[in-house]
């Protein structure tokens, strides 16, 4: 029972309440410390010199003048980062992405770095470094990079997943395939077949806090790193591996994180900061500028996707295929795999085949962005689904309900689903008043579905009981959206005490066993599950202490509402002992009370959402306004409904920005043209309406409280929901995201 993770269907006292967030006070007073807010005595300012070329051989770097400038304490190039990767190509790529080794592979690629006494000196010194480049041919477009005449970026890349195995270098590191049944036979039965190609442009997570860290290395090989990250254990491991350090000697402390959305799951300038600190033997702070964040962190893929769906007159999809070509930046990734896996995950299909092509380009290496790769695949699928419904003369919601995956459906990517929420979200869409609201001229409504896997992963936590009966929970998953409060609620629920008696903190890498990153919507799911088990173990200890104090067998004791209660008539004189009573007496009953859990949090429940969007399109300018938006998503169990709603709304807003405005624009020269918030425009307050939310709770059978991850799924449907709405408003099918005013006008003109 203690360690079981099965769903218990218990009644809750704390879970589901809208309590005050524990990090709120620090965040509204300016006291919360983020990546750039730490200070160390004697710290230097670290800055990075970046390639202005999309692809260039680095013939020579002359740092002598910079080194001689007064106030410069260290200058490094790739020579100061020797290869400790021992033949691990992925790790070497990571090192090469942190600092170019002989070749600059994208505009913004780091080539050298400086630590100096102040920012002015550091900036001045940067200009004194002379880099002799030989510019090489480049490619930044996903389809162009796949052509035979494209410049091959890495001659060591061989396409995995094709027969016969290639012998030549390629820009396609991998082909992947998923599906089941016989799609040719399926299409042969179809009354209607729609085939369409789509493109989506590259976007950035757009977290408001730039990457920042404070590194402090000592000559004895020990060090500390304060950093904004979604995973300080992963950062610790990677930095130690790349710099040839013992992992245990590098203590990484996570700062408050000013947004990540997947973009803070990779290292960029952290090893550089550590290497600078090692060379200077002084603490070094490195803070990226916004321009650096855009040019040289990890945006999401641009894509090119073909979808083909066939259906019979009665509205059943009989075959579906997709080919997902995903641009992954300058090094191999596995983003198209996820696109191919998620393409048709919402549907119950007899015949389905999806193919993914990873593509390398002269752009920054792609990182995760909230349900990475799924929104683009969903845009292509859900746009085509609308077209099929239209061709059949069916209501698009009814058509989706008829074909929706359900418990027992074999997913297009392999596994068989347990209880899932796609059907219920669609039924909720059908019933929602939003669907019956009147539209005016030039307005359109669209809806779309989305899926995300969610993830569990390695997790550890510790519960410490203080002498006054209040409790600290230490977890190793970064809090990106309120998880410390949610985890305190879970701990309080399990211990039978009040929320205010529990305070949750993020432990550093030396305080806890390894924790995977906060990714895959796992923070509250996995650390919550770990906290439940740790709390149950804590209760076992507390019961034992009561038994010792009472001198009765522990089997006679139950834990009820935060108290040890002696059961049975023979103990009727024993007054229940509260957690505080027991905590006050630990000296005499066996020492401090704690509970731990270290495990792999398996059983993350998949999650589904359906979104409804109304837009108003100005046919003269092509400008689009979202005038109403509704998110309906299965949360399994909402621990803190405010934060679940917040995830729904935030993901929807990011998706709306992606659908309408946001895109990386590269020039012919392969340089990023819009590395700033003025030209890369994310939605502002006046761009959006209130975003309505409806939380459905279809319990995850593999979590004691039924929790599913909630953070990511909300960004999956918006591209298609907005796309379907715009297409319905203007009467032309939109196939290229973002649907910026020029693209809408071009589509209207092409139609005329």
């Amino acid at each position: 029972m203690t360690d079981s993770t099965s769903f218990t269907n218990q009644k809750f006292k704390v879970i589901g309440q809208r309590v005050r967030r524990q990090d709120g006070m620090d965040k509204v007073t300016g006291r919360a410390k983020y990546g750039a807010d730490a200070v160390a005595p004697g710290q230097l300012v670290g800055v990075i010199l970046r390639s202005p070329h999309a692809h260039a051989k680095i013939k020579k770097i002359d740092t002598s003048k910079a080194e001689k400038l007064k106030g410069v304490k260290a200058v490094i190039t790739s020579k100061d980062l020797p290869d400790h990767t021992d033949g691990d190509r992925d790790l070497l790529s990571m090192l090469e992405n942190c600092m170019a080794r002989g070749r600059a592979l994208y505009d913004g690629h780091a080539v050298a770095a400086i630590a100096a006494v102040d920012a002015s000196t550091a900036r001045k010194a940067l200009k004194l470094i002379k880099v002799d480049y030989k510019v090489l041919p480049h490619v930044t477009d996903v389809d162009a990079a796949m052509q035979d005449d494209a410049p091959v970026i890495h001659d060591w890349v061989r396409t995995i997943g094709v027969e016969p195995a290639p012998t030549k270098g390629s820009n396609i590191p991998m082909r992947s395939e998923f599906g089941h049944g016989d799609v040719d036979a399926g299409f042969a039965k179809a009354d209607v077949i729609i085939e369409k190609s789509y493109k989506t442009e590259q976007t950035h997570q757009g977290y408001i806090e730039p990457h920042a860290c404070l590194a402090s290395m000592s000559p004895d090989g020990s060090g500390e790193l304060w950093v904004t990250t979604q995973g300080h254990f992963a950062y610790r491991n990677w930095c130690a591996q790349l710099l040839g350090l013992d992992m245990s000697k590098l203590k990484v402390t996570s700062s408050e994180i000013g947004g990540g959305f997947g973009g803070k799951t990779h290292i960029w300038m952290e090893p550089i900061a550590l290497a600078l600190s090692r060379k200077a033997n002084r603490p070094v702070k490195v803070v990226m500028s916004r321009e650096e964040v855009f040019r040289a962190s990890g945006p999401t893929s641009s894509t090119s996707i073909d979808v083909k769906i066939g259906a019979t007159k009665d509205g059943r999809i009989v075959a579906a295929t997709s080919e997902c070509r995903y641009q992954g930046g300058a090094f191999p990734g596995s983003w198209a795999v996820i696109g191919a896996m998620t393409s048709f995950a919402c549907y119950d299909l007899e015949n389905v085949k999806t193919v993914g092509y990873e593509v390398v380009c002269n752009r920054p290496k792609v990182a995760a962005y909230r349900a990475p790769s799924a929104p683009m695949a969903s845009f292509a699928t859900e746009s085509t689904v609308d077209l099929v419904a239209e061709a059949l003369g069916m209501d698009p919601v009814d058509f989706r309900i008829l074909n929706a995956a359900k418990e027992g459906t074999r997913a297009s990517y392999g596994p068989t689903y347990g209880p899932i929420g796609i059907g219920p979200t669609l039924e909720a869409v059908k019933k929602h008043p939003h669907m019956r609201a009147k539209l005016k001229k030039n307005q359109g409504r669209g809806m779309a579905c989305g899926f995300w896997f969610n993830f569990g992963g390695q997790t550890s936590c510790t519960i410490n009981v203080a002498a006054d009966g209040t409790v600290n929970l230490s977890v190793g998953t970064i809090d990106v959206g309120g998880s410390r409060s949610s985890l305190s609620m879970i701990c309080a629920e399990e211990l039978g005490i009040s929320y205010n008696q529990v305070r949750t903190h993020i432990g550093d890498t030396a305080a806890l066993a390894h924790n995977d990153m906060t990714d895959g919507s796992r923070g509250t799911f996995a650390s919550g599950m770990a906290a439940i088990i740790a709390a149950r173990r804590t209760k076992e200890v507390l019961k034992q202490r009561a038994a010792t104090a009472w001198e009765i067998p522990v089997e006679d004791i139950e834990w009820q509402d935060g108290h040890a209660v002696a059961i049975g008539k023979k103990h009727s004189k024993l007054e229940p002992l509260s957690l505080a009573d027991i905590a006050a007496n630990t000296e005499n009953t066996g020492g401090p009370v704690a509970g731990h859990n270290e495990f792999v949090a398996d059983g993350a429940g998949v999650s589904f959402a359906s979104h409804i969007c109304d837009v108003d399109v100005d046919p003269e300018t092509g400008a689009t306004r979202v005038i109403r938006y509704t998110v309906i998503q299965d949360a399994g169990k909402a621990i803190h409904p405010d934060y679940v709603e917040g995830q729904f709304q935030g993901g929807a807003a990011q998706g709306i920005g992606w659908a309408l405005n946001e895109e990386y624009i590269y020039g012919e020269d392969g340089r990023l043209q819009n590395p700033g918030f003025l030209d890369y425009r994310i939605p502002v307050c006046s761009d959006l309406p209130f975003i309505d939310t409806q939380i459905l709770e279809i319990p995850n059978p593999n979590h004691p409280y039924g929790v599913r991850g909630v953070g990511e799924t909300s960004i999956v449907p918006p591209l298609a929901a907005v796309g379907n709405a715009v297409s319905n408003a203007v009467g032309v099918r939109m196939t290229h995201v973002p649907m910026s005013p020029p693209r809408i006008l071009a589509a209207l003109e092409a139609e005329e």
Partner: protein
Amino acid sequence: MSGAHVSTTVNGDAVQFACPNDESLLDSLRNRVGLTGVKEGCGTGDCGACSITLDDRLVCSCLVLGVEANGKQIGTVEGLADGDKLHPLQENFIKHAALQCGICTPGFLVAAKVLLERNPDPSEEEIRYALAGNLCRCTGYDKIVRAVQATAKDLRKKSKKKS
């Protein structure tokens, strides 16, 4: 780079600092005055995370030089609370879950305070346009607008009681 001596008032207190002539007020406040509640999100005046008041004018401190603060009154998020009593905006941001990561929160609070001082009864649209210079990537702005609406209501009730 030559520097200058700056005498200014920050959140009501006299403050002096020396800074290079090319240093932004944002950097001066963060690195010399120690007020790290003022955040840098872009350094180009596009995100509003560094919003402060300069003689009651709402500005992006990244677009002002440190030396320009000489003789001026600066207001930052650190000056919002009255002793141990939070400003109603701070209270409502917590109550309405109007923050997630919190990096944009200081800028929003300062901008919203300026709005409510000028317009105690703003419409939703007025709130949205007044806060359009502050970027938030976590919330979709929904709960931020609701927190500002709730604060406006609270403050109107309060001023009615007073009168």
